[in-house]
């Protein structure tokens, strides 16, 4: 197997316990209409014996109602369906402690969000926003969320499905995985710089180059998984590490988008970010008294 692009369901089988995936049921919620959000695969599986919610993309599905949705694109129905799977997970475990809340495994292979006129008239931005807020809520409520990039993790679709996770893993680019906003060829055209120059610059500065390796340097990917049969162990390991952080209460600083900021500084890819945030905090501290209750 030299790539998993377009094979979300195969990847679910490789990551989760054998034959444990039950599609279209999460907690008390069932998704009974097969024509609803077919580009999104949601369901429940076991991972190392424990219940997990799985959310993935289906690259073979075509949404008859919204023809811009195919090849793993996340359309309006798909975004809301994914959000519903997250809310159903929160609801199912709301009485559970952080040690027992089910993990969410995001299997990522999506090239974009629905780019159509109907989508803009009705607000595609709300569907992707809704899913991200749901993931952030689940993460902050104590559910470990691990994203596994198996194929395409492109721009806004990756923001939507992946970047709100506690930890993000990616298959090595030798399996064709793509993580980027735009390929370097397009960036070269837009910023009017020769691709050779950009490639050379990218060696020292990962901010505009495409691929898991560069995202890893920026702290945007926690770990690159070098073999397909290593995915399962890696996901199990990261779910355990994230859960331990949540139980210990250290997840706020070490996982999720904020934790990846710290990782980006540690790996030297995003060195300026923490300086700017610290400067903002220190400048605010000097004037804060003027804005506190009772101040004039």
């Amino acid at each position, binding site marked *: 197997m030299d790539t998993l692009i377009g094979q979300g369901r195969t990847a679910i089988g490789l990551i989760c316990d054998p034959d444990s995936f039950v599609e279209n049921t999460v907690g008390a919620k069932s998704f009974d209409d097969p024509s609803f959000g077919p580009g999104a695969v949601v369901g429940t599986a076991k991972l190392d014996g424990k219940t997990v919610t799985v959310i993935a993309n289906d690259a073979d599905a075509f949404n008859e109602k919204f023809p811009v949705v195919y090849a793993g694109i996340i359309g309006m129905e798909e975004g809301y369906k994914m959000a519903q799977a997250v809310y159903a997970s929160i609801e199912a475990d709301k009485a559970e402690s952080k040690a027992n809340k089910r993990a969410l495994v995001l299997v990522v292979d999506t090239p974009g969000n629905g780019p159509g006129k109907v989508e803009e008239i009705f607000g595609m931005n709300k569907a992707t926003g809704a899913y991200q807020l749901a993931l952030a809520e689940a993460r902050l409520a104590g559910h470990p969320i691990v994203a596994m990039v198996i194929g395409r993790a492109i721009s806004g679709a990756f923001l939507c499905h992946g970047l709100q996770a506690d930890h993000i893993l990616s298959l090595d680019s030798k399996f064709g995985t793509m993580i980027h906003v735009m390929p370097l060829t397009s960036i070269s055209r837009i910023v009017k710089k020769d691709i050779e120059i950009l490639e050379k610059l990218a060696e020292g500065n990962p901010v505009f180059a495409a691929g898991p390796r560069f995202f890893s340097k920026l702290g945007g990917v926690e770990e690159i998984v070098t073999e397909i049969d290593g995915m399962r162990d890696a996901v199990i390991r990261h779910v355990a590490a994230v859960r331990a952080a949540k139980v210990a209460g250290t997840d706020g600083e070490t996982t999720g988008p904020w934790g990846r900021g710290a990782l980006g500084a540690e790996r030297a890819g995003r060195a300026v970010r923490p300086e700017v945030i610290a400067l903002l*905090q220190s400048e605010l501290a000097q004037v804060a008294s003027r804005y506190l209750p009772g101040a004039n």
Partner: protein
Amino acid sequence: MSKWSTLLSRSFLESNARERALGLVDDGTFTELVGPFDRRTSPHLETLGEAVEFDDGIVTGIGKIGKTPVFVISQEGRFIGGAVGEVGGAKMVGTIKAAIDFADRIAKDYPNATDEEKPIVAISFETGGVRLHEANAGLLAHAEVMDQLQKARHKVPVIALIGSKVGCFGGMGFVAAATDVIVMSEFGRLGLTGPEVIEQEMGKDEFDSADRALVYRTTGGRHKYVMGDCNFLVEDTIAAFRAQLAELAKLPREKFEELRRIGSEVLVAKQLKGVALAAEMQPKDSRDVWVHAGNPDPVSLALAPVADFRAQAKRLAL
């Protein structure tokens, strides 16, 4: 820089990011944080040999409206279209986080503080999303902003103001959707995919990005008001945006959840009724939806002065 009183009557659309920030809050109360004197420019633009700005195209700071501390984020479309890079993204993330920390401090040290004395965040969007010169860092900053928006919920209201030239698109389109309240002028535009990209995807027959009227009909403030995607539609002046902000600052904090369009299972179910309607109608134009919402003469309605429009327009009931 104009005097504060003269800023108020200015067009929000025509103003720059700093004028908007200054005019939104009370005279003399704005303190810019990580302002141009700090010269925190983008190291990545420099690497590429591109021009930089001392504020990286975004104004962040704190001011007051009456008794309310207002954390302001104001994007500048005149610098690379307001696109978000590492520095600008960090200023945005840092400001929302600072507002949350400030609210926590007030809750701890001033247990008798009224809601009016607790902070709010106002974001004037003017952006197409990620800055391609530093795309990866910009993308990661977007995810951080979303995370902060969820952390701010039930604690610090975040209010989106959209009335700038560039509008609010790309990743910032869903950041805006995820705020508590959206205030637009008729010139504001909100969406995910910009008109040029839709044309590229669907063909010019389906969507002509050069057709300004079509573009505004699809993503403009009036349409978003009819759809319920923006909560308030105001005149194109800094004063009008400021007045709406001042009114919101007085609102009991628990009321903000009621203004949200997304952010809960119940709201997702409601939005899905809209998606079902979209599937059923397959509208060729936003005006089809206006008619469905109960506006039999959308053409006249679209031309009515904003105050009349607000009085007459029927909003889509889901």
